[in-house]
């Protein structure tokens, strides 16, 4: 059994990323989409942390920044979502198309 190496992390991260992308593209509920975006961000974090084994601690520092950013983004996104829900009584993304043209 081969020891766990960088490639394993990358494979897990890629799987998470693809799951996130599929979630963003296919789900109608904005909450789920936001969660899928978190998946994508965390896939990136995993990549950063994995590569920091080779290139030093910069990657980990960057990952912490990304986590902070994700928290902020989730807060803002959910705030917008609640405001929107109060107006339209829906959180389905296919019903939110007022700005099209």
């Amino acid at each position: 059994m081969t020891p766990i190496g960088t490639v394993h992390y990358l494979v897990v991260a890629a799987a998470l990323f693809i799951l996130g992308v599929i979630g963003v593209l296919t789900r109608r509920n904005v909450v789920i989409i936001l969660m899928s975006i978190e998946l994508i961000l965390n896939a990136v974090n995993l990549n950063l942390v994995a590569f920091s084994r080779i290139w030093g601690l910069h990657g980990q520092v960057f990952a912490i920044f990304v986590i902070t950013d994700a928290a902020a983004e989730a807060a803002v996104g959910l705030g917008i979502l609640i405001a929107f829900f109060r107006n339209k009584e829906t959180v389905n993304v296919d019903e939110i198309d007022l700005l099209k043209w």
Partner: protein
Amino acid sequence: MVFLSHIWLIPLLPALGAATTLFFGRKLQKTTINAVCVGAVVLAFLFACGAVWQYTDYARANPGKPYQNIVYTWLGTGNGEAGVSPVQQGGESQPPIIFLTRDGRPAPLQADAGFLLDPLSSIWLLFVTGVGALIHIYSTGYMAHEGGYYRFFGYLNLFMFSMLTLILANNYVLMFVGWEGVGLCSYLLIGFYFHRPSASTAANKAFIVNRIGDAGFLLGMFTIAWYFGSLRFTEVTQLARSGHFAIGDPIITAATLLLFVGACGKSAQIPLYVWLPDAMEGPTPVSALIHAATMVTAGVYMVARSNALFVLAPSSMKTVAIIGALTAIFAASIGLVQNDIKRVLAYSTVSQLGYMFLALGVGAFAAGVFHVFTHAFFKALLFLGSGSVIHAMSGEQDMRNMGDLHKRIPITHWTMFIATFAIAGIPPFAGFFSKDEILWQAWSSEGGAYRLLWLVGFVTALMTAFYMFRLMFLTFHGRPRMSHEVEHHIHESPKSMTMPLVILAICAICAGWLGWPHSLGGSDRFAKFLEPVFAREANVFQAEGKSAQLAAGEREEEHTSPIEYGLMFLSVGAAIIGWGMAWRAYREADKGYNEPIAAASPPLYDVLYNKYYVDEGYDYAFTGRRKVGDTRLGVMGAGEAASWFDSHVIDGLVNGAGWITRLSGTLSSWWDKWIIDGVLVNGPAILSRMLSYPMRLLEWGLVQWYALVMVLGLVGFVAYYSWR
């Protein structure tokens, strides 16, 4: 100088009376109204006496100088001489109205509330307030049982205010204010019985005919302002006498003719006399005050006031003289056959006014003014007497239904007889002196070129005597022709009415003595009093063609010539012949008496009785009625033609202009809607909309679609760079 310096109180007193009565009169007792209105006029009379008395002192100190008192300037700003206007005291001076005179000089258009007292206005002031006060007293008796008592006295006081403003004004504009004011009061008082259609029609007629004259006055006033740069009497007179202007100056001629149009309207001269006979619809005291003694002499006053201008325009003078003489004989001939007692007097007034203008026109201003003065007394007396007769006859005005009143109303009878002697020109009553002076001046002025006018005046004098004695005999003598019921009610009028009659009768006897001519051993004080106003003019006028000295000398010489005595005898003879003819014809007048003129020539009688069909002619010519009497004319009169022109051509032009505007509006709107909006604005928009349509299909609003495109693009890039 307390009276002179407060001369503005004279018009103000009746104004206050009018304001009190018109605003609160409905609630006041008749006695209060009497006290306020009569009191105001009597006070004004006393004040006027005081002012004139002080003026004579003033005139002695400053010979030939009129007294001028400028209270403030109400039109344009005041200048240094004119006292400081209240507006200027506040630091904010209103900008003066500047206009350019004929010689290109800027002049301010201004008019003062200023008062001018000179011999001319003194005379008017005295008889207007004096006769006015007597007529006010008379009215308290005459109107005692009439409705609208307060209204009557309010208007009467308003009239006094306007008339005094007219007289005392020191410039044409303020004079015009009074001029319009008396016109308004005349209108209101003619239409006093407004429930009678004939009265309201007569009031309208008076007002409208007067407007025509007023237009002439206004234009004349503007011409004077434009030519002389001032509207003050003193300044205009000074400029006119300065010698800068040639005799016969066309602009002065035009201005004086325009002023004379105004005088024709107010003083009932041909062709604007038609309103005065109809004005008899008003109550009799009104006829006496406004339409005999005072207002109708305003035209004479205005012409006499502008004498310095008229002297510079001999053709205007000739016009005045000819119009005056024509009016005199024209109105007198109508008066010969009228049956309404007041209408006879009305035509007599028109005729006497004609005499006054004849005098003014031949340059005998003093004689004209003298006749105004004496006429005011005897004509007011005649009207008041006729009012007393009408009062006694329970409102009957037709002389055919009168007769034999002399024993029943003796005071009225005797006072009216005195006035008749006066108007007929029998010495020593007032009318003799003034009428004779006019006839003599007409004979003697300008070397006798006006002798035809003298003849006209002479015939008029004969007619005057005839119709006046006809009136007296029909009313007071002959057989009684009234119904029994009326006869039963005949009574002499109350003291308040007979007392003014007696006073006026005394004046009608004595007023003429003021102008006792030189030829009869008198001193002609009246003319001497007026000398500062007129003397120079007479000389200038005489000087036309000859030298002034020579003419003046000749005139002095002529004045004592035997011709004057001859003419005097002739005119007295005419008066006595008229008296005799009337005595023969009407002394025994019974029911169905014969009119001598009708017996001699029925067509002539018809023409005279119908007033030469002038009213019908005016109706036809100016008010658009095609029917004259019973005949219907086929051709349009000027009035109808004007109306047709107005409704077809003028209105057609107006409608055409409207139609064109609408058409162009429609066109413009079409252009705007389809070309500007459609092609130029919406066109590019539609184009870009069409061009952008395929792009829009891509942007259909689903966020995930955009994300998918991004992902696919990313995949595409990665694939491209991986397998390259």
